[in-house]
């Protein structure tokens, strides 16, 4: 920006353009969209959820006192109507005998876990479900593991069918979903994912300009293609960094040699090699022709690298190796209201920056 403004000032003293041209509509759109994305993405609170439960395991056939730690919850409001269930499967649930609310974030629920279960298993993972008039319902899967009792009273199996989850409250207001491992990092969806979308779009535009150079041989197409590769690389690097930060919080390591991480790093290496190739050739035409050829070749190989191979291997990343892609509870309608604008906004910003880069390049060349 600074470079382009100062260059514009320099140009004004020499060329004197008739009138400073106004900012194009799509640039305004990208500014407004990104301001909206940053505000909405950071300010909108998460839905209430359950962070942790102690104890993590118990034995069937006795009473268990569960300490529940909530997130963004308001237990002390209307605390008489707070209800809790432990769910074995489907409708097979037991309701808590009583609940004591300590404060907004902490509550204690007392359950009696029947000594007999409807089916036999080594251990029974139970899901904790809370319902509250203002907070709505929240769920913690595999909250507590129950090992079978020593003495089994088979008449107690009917206790599992006595209670029902009913009259669930909905949480009012615009809020992002609370996911157990993601928690607040779910906001990274608006930054990490659009980075890769933008990178693919920018590299695609770059390959298209390379194709134009291949057809027509105008040096300006080569400069445009290079500018798009440079900014595409920056976006790819940002995607990698945001992904690594996200991975630290969810997978517990910045780099876990996941196939998706490896393949995207290799994609960046391929394009870094293109920049090295450009710097090692002196002749302008030669440089333009070779980099146009390599660029198209690289973009075609990028498709199996980023979209096919990760899908065939086990991966922690959503959308690969049998994991569900974005959607369902990870991307609900509230998030879509921010996510889709974010994708469009970041792509427009990338195109804008690339445009500035090649304009500066052209000005430098004409000096």
């Amino acid at each position: 920006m600074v470079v382009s403004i100062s260059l514009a000032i320099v140009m004004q003293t020499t060329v004197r353009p008739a009138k400073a041209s106004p900012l194009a509509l799509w640039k305004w759109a990208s500014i407004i969209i990104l301001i909206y994305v940053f505000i909405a993405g950071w300010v909108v609170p998460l839905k209430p959820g359950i962070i942790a439960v102690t104890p993590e395991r118990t034995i069937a056939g006795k009473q268990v006192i569960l300490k529940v730690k909530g997130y963004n919850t308001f237990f002390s409001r209307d605390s008489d109507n707070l209800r809790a269930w432990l769910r074995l499967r489907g409708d097979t649930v037991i309701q808590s005998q009583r609940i004591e609310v300590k404060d907004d974030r902490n509550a204690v629920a007392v359950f009696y876990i029947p000594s007999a279960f409807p089916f036999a298993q080594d251990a029974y993972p139970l899901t904790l479900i809370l319902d509250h008039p203002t907070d709505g319902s929240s769920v913690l899967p595999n909250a507590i593991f129950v090992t079978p009792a020593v003495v089994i009273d088979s008449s107690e199996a009917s206790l599992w069918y006595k209670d029902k989850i009913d009259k669930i409250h909905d949480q009012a207001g615009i809020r992002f979903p609370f996911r157990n491992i993601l928690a607040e990092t779910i906001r990274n969806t608006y930054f990490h994912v659009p980075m890769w979308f933008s990178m693919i779009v920018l590299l695609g535009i770059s390959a298209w300009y390379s194709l134009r150079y291949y057809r027509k041989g105008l040096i300006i197409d080569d400069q445009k293609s290079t500018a798009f590769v440079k900014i595409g690389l920056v976006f790819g690097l940002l995607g990698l960094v945001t992904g690594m930060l996200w991975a630290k919080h969810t997978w517990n390591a910045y780099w876990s040699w996941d196939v998706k991480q490896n393949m995207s790093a290799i994609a960046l290496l391929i394009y870094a090699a293109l920049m090295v190739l450009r710097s090692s050739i002196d002749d302008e035409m030669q440089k333009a022709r070779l980099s146009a050829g390599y660029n198209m070749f690289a973009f075609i190989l990028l498709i199996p690298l980023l979209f096919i191979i990760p899908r065939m291997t086990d991966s922690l990343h959503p959308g690969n190796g049998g994991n569900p892609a974005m959607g369902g509870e990870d991307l609900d309608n509230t998030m879509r209201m921010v996510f889709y604008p974010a994708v469009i906004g970041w792509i427009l910003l990338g195109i804008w920056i690339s445009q500035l880069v090649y304009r500066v390049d052209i000005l430098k060349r004409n000096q």
Partner: protein
Amino acid sequence: MGRIWNLVAIEARIELRERFALAGLLLYVLSSSFIVFSIWRQLPAKEWGLTFWVIFLFCSLMAVLKTFGRESETRYYYYYTLYHPLELFLAKVLYNAALLIFIFLSLWFVLFVMAGDHIVRGGWFLATGFMACIGLSVLLTLIASIAIKTQQNASMTAILALPLMIPVLINILRLTAYSLGTTPDENPWNEVTLLTSIISLVTGMALWLFPYLWRS
């Protein structure tokens, strides 16, 4: 086709005239396997496959690197008047593929003698090797034709080619795991389809781009 064979024959004659060339490659295979073997001492099946392809990778880079540097530039002008660039390219690819198959077979023999036989499905390994040789030959020949135009020819080939080889290499490693019997996967046809489609993609792109890159 006859014209292409002529070019292949010329290539082979030039290579064989310098006796150290082929012998040098063999020595490279032998000494690198020796280094790896003296570090590992023994190679279990999984490591055998990995070692094989790491050595093969660097040998193939070595072998294809000098494919365009062998003859003088004026000779290429001469070729340019006689042959279509595609004929030259196909001749180079065929010759390099033969060279890579030679490396593949000799490396297999060396590792077989040194580290024992771990291959359960020999036919599969041979097929994998042939596919790898053809795919890498096309890819490396194209990259070598780009790199010859730059100043640091040798390092540039490695920089440009190594990341591009990875999609091919990953599938080859999976097929190797299948032929070594170290994977529970019982259906390798997915990998075969993916590998052949990547190779044909690379070949198509290379055939389209080479005439354009070659004229200078």
